[in-house]
């Protein structure tokens, strides 16, 4: 089993987390068993730690955390296995009050999965304080990005994790699946042969693989809410060998050579709102 030393991000920006994530999985073969060494990390955010958790769960890979200075944090967030039931989630929250565990959403659990996701979303927006409209702004992207997993990924498991950083005054959220990704979805559902970059563009332009014309707005609107309503937020979307890095009025696509995430990673950062929020103008 190949050992991968996860590099410490060079700063706390989302792009720095993306860089560490890229270097972690560069040259990894399809479903390769990896042994992740977290000893260099003294801080992590969801964009880096959740894909590693999802990968371990999906491939039966391993990790070494005993020599890590963030061992207790990793244990508190239930890394790497996560929790997949409401009772486990509540136990974890009772025990480690300010830490929200990695949540594993299983399609077959149906309404129980929905309640676990609701519990996660409630805990997340509570961390932002009592800000008018924050609930809608936080719930919308979570709901749309998670529902995409069960609609399109052809995988029955999704992973979600969030962390509020009170001293930095922002909230990071990551949603991951290890499914087929955008390009394979367009190919299998619509017969479109697209590169990973072009498939992200299609998804952002609202070109749904489903026939109803009013569908396909979920990712686009989520990005707008994060970057525009939540003023100063950042949004990253990765599928296959491509990524989108979006901020307010700045959207960039990047090819990720020798990297191939089987599925979709969506991660975003929300600054703590300073006033009331209104997503109604973005609803389509």
């Amino acid at each position, binding site marked *: 089993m190949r050992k991968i030393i996860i590099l410490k*991000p*060079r*700063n706390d*920006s989302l*792009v*720095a987390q*993306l*860089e560490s994530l*890229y270097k972690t999985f560069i040259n990894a073969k399809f479903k390769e068993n990896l042994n992740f060494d977290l000893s260099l990390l003294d801080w992590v955010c969801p964009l880096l730690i959740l894909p590693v958790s999802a990968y371990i769960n999906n491939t039966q890979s391993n990790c070494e955390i005993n020599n890590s200075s963030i061992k207790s944090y990793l244990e508190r967030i239930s890394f790497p296995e996560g929790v997949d039931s409401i009772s486990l989630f509540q136990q974890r929250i009772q025990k480690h009050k300010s830490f929200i565990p990695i949540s594993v959403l299983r*399609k077959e659990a*149906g*309404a129980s*999965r*929905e*309640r676990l*996701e*609701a519990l996660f*979303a*409630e805990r997340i927006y509570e961390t932002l304080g009592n800000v008018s409209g924050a*609930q*809608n702004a936080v*719930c*919308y992207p*979570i*709901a*749309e990005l*998670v*529902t995409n997993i*069960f*609609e399109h990924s052809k995988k029955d498991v999704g992973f979600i994790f969030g962390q509020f950083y009170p001293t930095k005054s922002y909230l990071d959220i990551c949603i991951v699946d290890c499914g087929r990704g955008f390009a394979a979805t367009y190919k299998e559902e619509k017969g479109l042969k697209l590169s990973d*970059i072009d498939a992200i*563009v299609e998804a*952002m*332009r*609202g*070109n749904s693989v489903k026939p*109803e*014309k*009013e*569908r*396909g*707005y*979920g990712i*686009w*609107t989520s990005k707008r809410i994060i970057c525009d309503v939540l003023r100063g937020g950042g949004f990253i979307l990765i599928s296959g060998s491509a990524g*989108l*890095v*979006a901020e307010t009025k*700045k*959207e*960039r*696509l*990047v*090819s*990720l*050579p020798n990297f191939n995430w089987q599925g979709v990673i969506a991660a975003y950062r929300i600054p703590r709102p300073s006033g009331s929020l209104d997503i*109604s103008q973005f*609803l*389509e």
Partner: protein
Amino acid sequence: MTNMKKSHKNLAISRLLAPIVSSRDVIDVLEKAIKKTNIKLVDLDFSNVKFISRSAAHALLLMKERLQAKKNISFINTNKDVTNMLRVVAANRIVSEKQKPEFHPEKIDVNVLFKEVLT
């Protein structure tokens, strides 16, 4: 979970599904519960439902259309946000208000992107 009120069937969404209704596929759970009852008038009770996603609202409206020959489904006790979402999605289903999103991102080399981290 369910209360019989004369000729009405009341289904409490927050208990049957969740207080935040997110996923499109979970509407299937609701559809099964509606089909199970032999009462024609069904009230979907949104008391304690804090949020419904666009996708779930869309799936819910499609389900209502599908079942309309057999069931008379009403949405009751919706809060302002849930009402707004259902209205926007229903209106957009009838007359699409907006064009598809304009999305023209810049393409950037990965090394250039990661160099930004240092600045």
